């Protein structure tokens, strides 16, 4: 049997192992701590341990499992909270005890299995064929698929009934053997699940946030990075995305973040309903707080994306939120430094960029093995050092993502949330989502007008920061008022004002139309000699500001009314 030769932090060097395999899972010491072989040399192997190694001593035994790290995929994942290696975290003791071993999915719970009525015994079936259905929650309906790499003749399909996941629901005669299929199967996290092909993104991933949907849109199947320093409202933005992203399944990977934050996420989501559906009923949580063992942090992201792929294979639109990529990269750095790898930039391993790519690139719109369409959108946050975008993790992510929402501390300081910096952010999805938006209204028109107005405001602000506001022309002063309105009614969107925390595309288009029309009409009126005080004053400002706390129908009605008023703005009183 293998035994420990050396212990240094989260790394153990084992010796006398029997044909060790790279990425093989081993159990270490009396408590059977979870470990993974990451290097093999001569008669020794380096093992990263997913628990605290305190108390282990050289000579303690190492048991080999002959298996790589696999996640269990099947009913029972939704609403569950797992750690980075998919161990359920729910439990009664206050503190986590090291070395606890438990199965990922509940073996006792019975699920109602409805067989696919189109199948009959004797049929030839392929990977991705639907064997049956299980309604896990009101929102998530599992399709139990034939796992990848299994094909042959169906010799048995279980009848409608309630079974545990260990029950054999189908038998398939393959070339080599008769395979017993259950409601779940296991899959190595490092290996992307096969698909037929990837396609270009087409539909926007709506978030209800104006600055995102309207100016820097996300697309289903896209890759998005959210870099920001601390205190830039990253967490709040993540909350908003969890609440409002229009996804069928959401995988939240809390990677090296705060414990109190995680519980806030869990609590908030469990209470929230969107369109009558509990958000909880579509969410899988993978949680590795900053004080949990560092090695488990490295695997949480891959466990998460594998679970996302499993749901995508069933034809669902999945969003995976990884918060944060930086903590994940740091965990890799910590391990790599301990191994003694030659370090790259800022001590990060030289394979940093390829690992980040490996994660983001598993996103996409796909044609699945079942011939259905599905998508995975990956969103990763990046914790910048001192809000410096030259950070290696940020740069590596920028190479692969198609959309970036850059968070700006200066906006956050003035409580301008979401603190998305318009100059640094970008979205390459605009050409893909243009059709969707233009179908709803003349989006392209307002989009371009907004960009122009923002450009003018930026120049004007540079001027006033030096010269003050007193010598400005009326047109310029009016532009500053417009800036104020844009900030309050378009850019700022607080989660605390419930009515405004989420706006539909129509509402977004309308408010853009209102402000742009107000600006254009106002300038015309000024040119005709109408006084600035008559166009923009305290009352008009207040009238506009009332929109903020209006619900949908009232909001749209009020905008229509304001738009009508604007028709007469250049008429002298």
């Amino acid at each position, binding site marked *: 049997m293998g035994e420990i030769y050396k212990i240094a932090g989260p790394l153990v060097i084992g010796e006398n192992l029997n044909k060790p395999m790279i990425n093989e899972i081993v159990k270490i010491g009396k408590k059977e701590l979870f470990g993974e072989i990451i290097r093999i040399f001569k008669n020794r192997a380096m093992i990263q341990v997913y628990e605290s190694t305190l108390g282990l*001593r050289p000579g303690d035994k190492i048991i080999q499992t002959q298996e790589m790290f696999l996640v269990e995929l099947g009913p029972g994942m939704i609403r569950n909270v797992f750690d980075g290696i998919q161990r359920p975290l729910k439990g009664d003791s206050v503190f986590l005890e090291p070395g606890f071993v438990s199965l990922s999915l509940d073996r006792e719970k019975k699920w109602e299995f409805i067989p696919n009525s189109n199948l009959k015994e004797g049929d030839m079936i392929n990977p991705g064929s639907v064997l049956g259905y299980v309604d896990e929650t009101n929102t998530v309906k599992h399709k139990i698929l034939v796992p990848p790499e299994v094909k042959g003749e169906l010799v048995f399909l279980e009848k409608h009934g309630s079974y545990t996941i260990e029950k054999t629901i189908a038998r398939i005669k393959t070339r080599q053997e008769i395979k017993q299929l259950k409601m779940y199967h296991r899959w190595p996290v490092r290996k992307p699940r096969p698909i037929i092909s990837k396609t270009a993104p087409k539909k926007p991933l709506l978030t209800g946030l104006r600055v995102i949907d309207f100016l820097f849109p996300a697309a289903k199947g896209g890759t998005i990075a959210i870099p920001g320093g601390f205190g830039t409202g990253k967490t709040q933005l993540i909350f908003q995305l969890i609440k409002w992203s229009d996804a069928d399944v959401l995988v939240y990977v809390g990677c090296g973040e705060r414990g109190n934050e995680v519980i806030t996420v869990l609590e908030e989501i469990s209470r929230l309903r969107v369109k009558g559906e509990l958000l909880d009923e579509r969410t899988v949580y993978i949680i590795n707080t900053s004080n949990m063992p560092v090695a488990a942090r490295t695997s949480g992201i891959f466990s998460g994306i594998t679970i996302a792929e499993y749901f995508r294979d069933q034809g669902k639109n999945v969003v995976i939120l990884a918060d944060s990529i930086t903590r994940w990269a740091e965990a890799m750095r910590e391990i790599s430094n301990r191994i003694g790898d030659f370090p790259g930039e800022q001590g990060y391993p030289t394979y940093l960029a390829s690992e980040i790519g490996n994660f983001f690139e598993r996103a996409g719109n796909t044609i699945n093995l079942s011939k259905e369409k599905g998508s995975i959108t990956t969103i990763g946050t990046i914790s910048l050092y001192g809000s410096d975008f030259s950070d290696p993790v940020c740069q590596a992510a920028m190479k692969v993502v198609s959309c970036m929402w850059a968070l700006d501390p200066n906006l956050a300081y003035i409580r301008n949330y979401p603190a998305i910096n318009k100059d640094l952010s970008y979205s390459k999805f605009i050409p893909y989502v243009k059709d969707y938006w233009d179908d709803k209204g003349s989006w392209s028109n307002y989009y371009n007008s907004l960009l122009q107005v923002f450009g003018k405001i930026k120049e004007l602000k540079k001027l006033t920061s030096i010269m*003050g506001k007193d010598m400005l022309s009326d047109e310029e002063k009016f532009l500053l008022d417009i800036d104020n309105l844009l900030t309050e009614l378009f850019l700022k969107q607080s989660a605390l004002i419930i009515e405004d925390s989420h706006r539909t595309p129509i509402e977004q288009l309308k408010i853009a139309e209102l402000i742009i029309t107000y600006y254009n009409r106002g300038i015309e009126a000024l040119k005709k000699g109408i006084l600035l005080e008559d166009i923009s004053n305290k009352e008009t400002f207040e009238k506009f500001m009332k929109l903020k706390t209006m619900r949908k129908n009232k909001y749209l009605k009020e905008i229509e009314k304001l738009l009508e008023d604007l028709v007469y703005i250049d008429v002298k009183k």
Partner: protein
Amino acid sequence: MIEYYCIDEIKGPLLIIRGNFNPKNGEIIRLKSRDGNRITAQVLETAKDVIILQSFKKLHGIRKSDVSVEFTGDLFEFMVSKKLKGRILNGFGNPIDNGPVIPGIKKKIEARIIRPSQREVPRGLITTGISSIDLLNTLIKGQKLPIFSGAGLSHLKLIGEILKNVSKQDSLTIFGGIGISYDEYNFINSLLEKTGILSKGIFFLNKAIDPVVERIILPRIALTCAEYFAFELNMDVIVILYDITNYADGLREISSMRGEYPGRMGYPPYLYTDLASLFERSGIVSGKKGSITQIPILTMPNDDITHPVPDLTGYITEGQIILSRELEKQGVFPPIDIIPSLSRLMYQGSKGLVREDFKFLGDLLYSSYSKYLNAKKLKLISGIEALSKADKKYLVFGDAFNDTFLNQKKRRTLIDSFDCAWEIIKLLPDFELVKIPTKFEKYIR
């Protein structure tokens, strides 16, 4: 117990042993030199042939052939007891107040991980008596809210005020002084003698001249103690750790002696994980009445907030209070710069516990103060003539904010802070005043 003479190398606080002893990772080792000098050390790295120890004492004048080694088989433990209240101890948990050693329950000091699903969302106010904290960056029970200061700023005076205020409340204060200078040591001692806060707390003090390893052990002992009082005796515990930069420097010193690859500015790459293992030992857990609230204090080298220590701390903690040299020079105490300061949990954790105007007032003060700063900048560039009437009003408001709201002669109750804030709101331009909802107008007197 068998003793061995097997020390092979001594570098800094580290001792290297060669030989097949197989101690546990983290085991406590007792060393004895021939002249009777006893030293405790801990296993940092262990292999079948080489063991690295860190010594708890300075190793001046030690010969390697002189030292015998005894393996205890135990991990580091600290004895917790109710009787610790009112005591002063060093970083290893030994009394330094001439009192007796306190027997108690043995606890391992390394961080245990609170099961995330067993946590509860932090809730409840802790008033510090400081208006700019209580009203604008409220400290919530179970929160970790650090103070970022700079060398020479009045953070220690601020700690003193906070200590005085929290010890009036029904809670336990645990203070950990890490690598503090002799002056600071004296300041804290005289504070303890004069104010009677000693009886409400436990004080761990490690001076700058004390061994580096003690700095690493101290917060772990302090937090083990906090967990005992909070989760076994159901008390609200407030842990103040000062100065986290000294802690990180200690960690760096040991890391470089071990020959580890350095991360940013020479700090070990696991600094984030290590700091998190301290700061995350706070919060509220379900089924327990107690709570742990942390106020770590650090001095930013060269006032640089992007320095690794404040930077990483800010990522772990739930907000930060930032002290400003500019305000300090203007004679403002406490010199809290409210603009970059933030308490992430203040609204969520105070729901239903504060007056109705709490959020409105906070937002109004924040936005008006930032307008004041803009007006001030403009005045510097273009002179007072460039300012509009409104800008001039902001200047008056902002100066009053600094002088009467931020600047405190004595501690204020929360209601006093509200009153003080409404008093200066009056100075704002009219169009700001009309934004005040009618239901709050009664507060302007």
